[in-house]
């Protein structure tokens, strides 16, 4: 798994590539990267899943831990460009009740502004 970070209109975007799996983690976890941004005062986080093929239960844990840390500080964590298969799993497991998921990055970015 590879994660690249960029910032767009006060939103931190994590472009994730590969699979978020326990066996795929190298040095830092997604949650740690999110926490670093929160410590730096950032409150709007977008996870770009365009190149994410699959996640395992560890990946779910990472996403939820990131969501909790962001939410506890009054921030927002959202997901964009998730694959249809993954979206189905998110729906069945009710992850969609907690996480805001968008088809396109622009729509997701706009939603952060609407929240403010």
């Amino acid at each position: 798994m590879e994660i690249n970070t960029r910032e767009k209109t006060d939103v931190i975007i994590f472009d994730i590539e590969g699979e978020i799996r326990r066996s795929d983690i190298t040095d830092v976890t997604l949650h740690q990267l999110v926490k670093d941004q929160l410590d730096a005062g950032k409150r709007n986080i977008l996870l770009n899943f365009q190149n994410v093929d699959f996640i395992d239960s560890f990946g779910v844990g990472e996403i939820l831990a990131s969501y909790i840390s962001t939410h506890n500080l009054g921030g927002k964590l959202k997901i964009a460009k998730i694959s249809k298969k993954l979206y189905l799993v998110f729906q069945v497991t009710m992850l969609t009740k907690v996480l805001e998921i968008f088809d396109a990055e622009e729509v997701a970015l706009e939603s952060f502004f609407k929240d403010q």
Partner: protein
Amino acid sequence: MAKNLLNRILSRFVEIKPGEEVIASLLFLYLFLIMFPYYIIKPYRDAKYLIELTSARLPYAYLLTALFMGFFVHFYTKLQVRIQRRVLIISSVTFFALTCLLSRWLFDQELSWMPLAFWVWANTFIVVLVTQFWILVNDVFNPREVKRLIGFFGSGGLLGGILGGVLTGLLGRDMPDIVLIIASGLLILSIFVVNHIFIWHRKKSAPSDQVGHKHRETGEEQVKVGFIDCFNTVRKNYYLKLLAGVVTLTFIVSTFIDWQSKTVIDIRIERMDEKLEFFGYFHAALLVIPFLISILMSSNILKRYGIRVTLLLFPLVLLLCIFGIGYWPEVFVFALAIKAGDKSLSFSINQYVRELLYIPISPELKYKAKVFIDMFLNRFAKGIGALILLFLVYVYLPPENWQWDWRDKVQLVSIIGVIFIGAWLLLNIKVSKEYTNIVKQKLEMKWDRGDRVVAEKMDVDYTKLVFDTIESRNRSSVLYAMHLFDLIKQDKLTPEVKKLISYKADERKVSSLGGLFESGEITLVPEMDDMLSEEVLDKEVKEIMSLDVYQEVMKGYIDKVLVDKTDDTETSKMELAKAIGLMESHSPLAQKLEELLEDESPEVSKYAIESAARLKRREHVPALIYKLHNPLTREDACTALEKYGERIVGTLSDYLRDYDEDFGLRREVASVLARIPIQDSADFLAWELAEDDGDMDPELIDALDRIRSRKPDIQVQEEVIKTKIFKEIKKYYQILIKFYDQKSKAKKPKISEKLSENLAASMMNVFKLLGLIYPHEDIFRAYQNIRTGTKDSVDYAVELLDNILPKQIRDIVFPLIEELHLEERVKRCRTLLKTFPKV
């Protein structure tokens, strides 16, 4: 920051902010120009009435005023529906100015009913104009602003009253007939001031305005309603009913006091000119005390003691006075003292507190309530007081009975007064409690704790199981079967899940979940639930696993897999780890889990951790705790330890307090304790917070905060937390001063940025700590609104904190949160640091 001249002058007397000086001065002047003529009219009214109708007939005046006000308010509410606020106020002032002149002429006609009619007119005058004034104040300012400025506005009225009284005293003996003409002239002057207030308010209510005010829609756009609607508004609202009760009792007691003092004065002073002179000076003198209280003490008393204590002050003083006059009715000083006590506090502190109590109510409700309570109910209460007096004076102690003289009557009224004051005190306590609730409702809860949201909205274990099931399909049919078995056991293998987990991403693209489920092409999940029921399946698996022969055969297999150190055995170990979790806790094979827990592969560890959580064997706890080290197994280990529950709290606290242990591990242990929200967890965390040198404070505070957010009834040692609050606030002050120094030097923006982050973190810690010993939800609500709210919601948040925090804490917390310029905030922090409580 450059301040204008008016601001500099006013700042000496009142805590005024830039942009407020003009409107505050206009409102000061407006009340001054209402009270000046009223305190000319009032002595004239009293003297005329006592001379021509005597104090014995005073209850009739109170009663007639009450009846008249009933009709008048009905008429007034209809009028205000049709007329704009601005026109209504200006017309009212004009009406009273002209009728004041008319009264002067009517008195010359020596009509016998005129003193009574003038009494009623004078009361209507003050009720209408003062109510209109406070409605205007309520429209322009929010509670925090009013709290700062109320003493200033009030002192304008008191100053006017004093001057009016003194002028009447001076002219009373020689030129009594001219006073009403002066009063009329002053009222006409006030029209110009009112007009300016509306012009100012309209300008400032523009959307671009930066000085936020509460109700931009004031003036012409205000809600206008009839009397019945006003009455129903109060009747249907618990808080307004309490307020109405307080006002009723206040005015009943005030009627008793007025009658008692005037009865004594009527006997002591006989002539009209002497009475007019006396009342002029007396009323002026009565106002000097509240004037001084307003200028010097009102805001301070309110800020220092809050609404709750201040509300009790007035009835308690009156209780003492009414007891005094009851015990020594012949002492003239008591007649003066009781009236002085009543008027001085009712015009200062009581008036301000009452106005503050209205402020958190929505503008629509407030307007209706004020019309009913302040215009009708207070006079109606005087009517009730008059009826009680009539009963006591004419029926209970009839005048024809020679045994009873005025002293007995004054004493009896005192006894009844004490009973009413008792009820009034109780209602005040109830009102102040309800006030805090109303302020709270003004503050929106902007977000809940993330962990609570997740726990409420989804089943994390089930979610992970679904993902694991999907993931295991291509890895191992054994693991896949065991996951399916788990889903069946939990009754979660619904047709949707069944179809979902058997769906292959690359087989076809689906446009929706519905489409997928309707396809009917999926046959990859074995139809187990058709063959066996959940109970039967569970029972059969358990029976097989508990067979001695199974245990023996499996032992051999497990040993073989564990000995093999090649990578190929990873999947086998995962299967084993999962299978052990399906066995009974006392099963001999469960011991093998320890080795699997220590396996290097995070995948194997994950399954071993899950199985440990199912078996809950104590010997696995140390291994699970050490799994907290690794970010790949941390979350699973946390969840597993949480499932052990309260029986491992002691063990966890041992790790927490072991300073030889890794710092990161101790931090994670604190987070596990937070997931077991019991009193012991809170006690151990607080204990550690007291002992710790500060490195782990954020984690310990967050853990305690998490516990309190889930279980607000859990108590945390107050002394420990207070000490930490002092330390954290001191730290905040120091960071703020550094930040200010960095900023003013305009150097090293990165350092400023870092300091700014530290300030935000420190502020959050302060509030989390406050939430540990004061109502958690209220503190959390206040914090969120302070951090992200508008100017008004910040003010309401500060008001809420003002009502729930003790003075000692308020004094050091408020400089952090009150709306101040950075320079002034730093100045305050520097001052406070010099006298900061030692911890």
